[in-house]
C-alpha cells in the first residue's frame, strides 16, 4: 500500500514536483533572507562594538552620565591596575583601554602659520604594543588609503576625507589643539603616517586615530583612560554573556557614594543599540513566520487545485472501500514527504546562496554614504550562516505543506462521498 501511494506521488508531478518546488523556493528564501539579515544586523552591531561600544564598557559613573560629550576630565585613573583586575576577574574577555577625544586639528605651513584647520574626533588606542589586536579590530590595514600605519609614537592616521579637506599628506605634521584632563589647553604635534577610509560617513568626516600613550601624553592623562572596553571571546555580542559579567562586576565595584567609581555598561545599553539587538534576535522568528504564512497560502491554493483535480482519484478510492480517514492521512503523509524533500533542497540552495554572500559579500557603500546614525554600517554586508540555518527551514517547509494539505483536504473530508461523484461526473 505504501509503495502504491509512493508510486502515485512520484509519478504525479503536480502532486509532488510542484509543491516541492514551492517549498524549496520558500525554504531557500527563508534560509537565505534569515542568514542575510542576520549577517547585516550582526555586522552592524559588531562594527559598532569594535569602533565604539565594545561588548561591555567600563567607565566612571560621571563619565557614563555624560558619555556623548566625551568628558575626559571624568576619566578613570590608574587604569593599569584596573585593567589587570578585570583581566583576572574576567579572563574570557579581552580588555582594552581607549580614549575618545575632541579637538581642533591645525595644519601649519613652513612658517608655523595655520594653513588649514578643522574639528576632529579622535580615538586613542593601543596601536604600538606587539600583542595589541586593536589595529586588526578596526581593520586599519584594509582601510589604509595612503601611507602606512603608525609604527612609532607620535604618528597618527587621519581619515582620507579629512586629510583632503585639510590638504595634508602622509609625512606632514599636524597639531592637535584640545583640552587636558585637568581643563588646561593641550597642544600636541603628530606626524601623519597614513590615511584611512572606513566607508562610514561619521568616521570618515574628521577622525584622528592615535596611539593610546601619545594621547595620554597629549591630554595629560598619565595611566588614565576614558573607557576600558571588553570583547567576548566568541566574537559576538550576547545578552546572556553580558548580564552575569555585569552582575559580578557590580558586586565588586559598585559604590553609590563615589561618582568616579567604575560602572560597566553592556553594548545593548549604549548608543540606542538595544533596538538592533532585539531586532536581530526576533528577526529570525519574524522571517520564518512571514514565509510560513506566505508558503501556506500558496500551498493551500496549490493543494486546493490539486485536490479538485484529485476528486476523481479520491472518489474512486472511497468507492472501492478505502476509509476517509485513511485517504486523508495518506494525503498528509504525502505532504510531509514533499515538505521534507522540498525543505532539504531549499535548505541546501539557501545555504549555498548564503555561503556565497558570506564569502563575497555585497558592497553597499553607495547606500550608506549619507549615514547619520550612531550605528556603524559596514561597507560590505555579508550573510552569516549560523547553526539554526541548517534546520530552521523545516518549520516553514513542513508546517506549510501540512497546513496547505490539511486545509485543502478538509474540503474532501467534509464532502459526502456521493457528492464527490456528482462533482467528478460533471
Amino acid at each position, binding site marked *: *500500500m505504501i509503495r*502504491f501511494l509512493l*508510486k*502515485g506521488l512520484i*509519478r*504525479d508531478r503536480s502532486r509532488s514536483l510542484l509543491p516541492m518546488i514551492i517549498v524549496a523556493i520558500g525554504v531557500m528564501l527563508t534560509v537565505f533572507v534569515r542568514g542575510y539579515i542576520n549577517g547585516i544586523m550582526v555586522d552592524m552591531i559588531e562594527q559598532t562594538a569594535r569602533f565604539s561600544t565594545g561588548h561591555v564598557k567600563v567607565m566612571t559613573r560621571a563619565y557614563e552620565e555624560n558619555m556623548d560629550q566625551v568628558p575626559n576630565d571624568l576619566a578613570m585613573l590608574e587604569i593599569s591596575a584596573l585593567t589587570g583586575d578585570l583581566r583576572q576577574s574576567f579572563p574570557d574577555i579581552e580588555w582594552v583601554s581607549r580614549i575618545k577625544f575632541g579637538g581642533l586639528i591645525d595644519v601649519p605651513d613652513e612658517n608655523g602659520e595655520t594653513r588649514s584647520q578643522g574639528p576632529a574626533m579622535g580615538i586613542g588606542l593601543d596601536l604600538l604594543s606587539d600583542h595589541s589586536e586593536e589595529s586588526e579590530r578596526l581593520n586599519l590595514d584594509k582601510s589604509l588609503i595612503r601611507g602606512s600605519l603608525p609604527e612609532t609614537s607620535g604618528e597618527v592616521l587621519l581619515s582620507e576625507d579629512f586629510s583632503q579637506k585639510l590638504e595634508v599628506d602622509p609625512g606632514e605634521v599636524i597639531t592637535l589643539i584640545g583640552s587636558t584632563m585637568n581643563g588646561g589647553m593641550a597642544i600636541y604635534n603628530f606626524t601623519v603616517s597614513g590615511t584611512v577610509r572606513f566607508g562610514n560617513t561619521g568616521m570618515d568626516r574628521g577622525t584622528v586615530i592615535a596611539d593610546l600613550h601619545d594621547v595620554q601624553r597629549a591630554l595629560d592623562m598619565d595611566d588614565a583612560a576614558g573607557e576600558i572596553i571588553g570583547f567576548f571571546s566568541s566574537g559576538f555580542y550576547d545578552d546572556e554573556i553580558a548580564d552575569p559579567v555585569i552582575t559580578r562586576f557590580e558586586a565588586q565595584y559598585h559604590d553609590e557614594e563615589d561618582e568616579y567609581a567604575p560602572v560597566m555598561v553592556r553594548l545593548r545599553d549604549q548608543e540606542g543599540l538595544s533596538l538592533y539587538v532585539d531586532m536581530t534576535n526576533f528577526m529570525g522568528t519574524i522571517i520564518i513566520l512571514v514565509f510560513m504564512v506566505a508558503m501556506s497560502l500558496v500551498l493551500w491554493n496549490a493543494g486546493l487545485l490539486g485536490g479538485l483535480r484529485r476528486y*476523481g*482519484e479520491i*472518489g*474512486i*478510492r*472511497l*468507492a*472501492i*472501500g*478505502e*476509509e*476517509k480517514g485513511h485517504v486523508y492521512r495518506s494525503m498528509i503523509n504525502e505532504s510531509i514527504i514533499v515538505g521534507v524533500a522540498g525543505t532539504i533542497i531549499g535548505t541546501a540552495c539557501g545555504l549555498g546562496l548564503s555561503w556565497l554572500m558570506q564569502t563575497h559579500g555585497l558592497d553597499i557603500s553607495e547606500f550608506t554614504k549619507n549615514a547619520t546614525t550612531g550605528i556603524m554600517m559596514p561597507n560590505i554586508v555579508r550573510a552569516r550562516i549560523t547553526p539554526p540555518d541548517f534546520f530552521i527551514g523545516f518549520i516553514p517547509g513542513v508546517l506549510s505543506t501540512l497546513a496547505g494539505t490539511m486545509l485543502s483536504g478538509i474540503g474532501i473530508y467534509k464532502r*459526502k*462521498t*456521493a457528492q464527490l*461523484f456528482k462533482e*467528478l*461526473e460533471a
Partner: protein
Amino acid sequence: MEDNLIIKTEKLTKRFPMGKSEFTALKGIDLSLGTGEFAGLIGPSGSGKTTLLNIVGSLDTPSEGKVIVLDRSIGNLTAKEAARLRKEKLGFIFQNYNLLAVHTVYENVEFPLLLLHIAGTERKRMVLDALEWVGLTDKIKQKPPQLSGGECQRVAIARAMVKKPSIVLADEPTANLDAANSHNILQTMVKLNKELKTTFLFATHDEKVISYLKRKIYLLDGKLDKDETVSN
C-alpha cells in the same frame, strides 16, 4: 427472481436539499434483488437511477425507508462500516471509468486487493486472472491515458471484479463507448455473471445495455414504473 435476497428496499425515499425547500429524487421505492441477477434500472434522465444506485452502494444514505444490502441496513451504517462493505462486497463501474491515471493497468486492478491486505503471490494471481477475464493481459504495464475508451472500461470491470464482489453496480457503463465496444463489455459482464454468480445492477438508458438485461426495472420521476423479468 432468484432465491437468495441480496438487495431489498422498502419505501425508500431520498430527498435532497434545494435552496430552502427540498427535492424528492426517490419516492417510496420497494425493490428486491436476488443473488446472481443481471438487472438494470432504466429511465429517463433525472428519474433517480444514479441516486438509487448510490444508496444501494452505500455511497449515500436514504432519507426515509429501509435499504438492506447483504443483511446490512445502509441507513444505519457508520462511515467505517460502509467503507468496509464496499471494500469487501461491492464493485463499482462508472460511465467515465475513473481509473487512477498515474497508475498502470496492473496497479489499478491491484488496488482493491491492497485495501483487503491480500498477500503478494495470491494478489498477483488474482490480478492476472481478472485481466484475463477482460482480455487485457498484454496491456498490464500501460497507463490509462494510453488506452482506448473500451480498454479503460475493461480495466474498470477488472478492477470491480478482481475481488469477486457479491454485487457490481454499474452506472451507464457504455455511455462513452461505441457499439462494438459496448457489446464486447456487456458480453464480458454476462460471462462473469454466469461464471462467478455475481449480482449486477445497472443504471442505464442505453438500448444496447437493456437488450442484455435479464430484468428491467423502470423508474419514472423517482417512482417504480415497471418491473419486467425476461424469460429465456
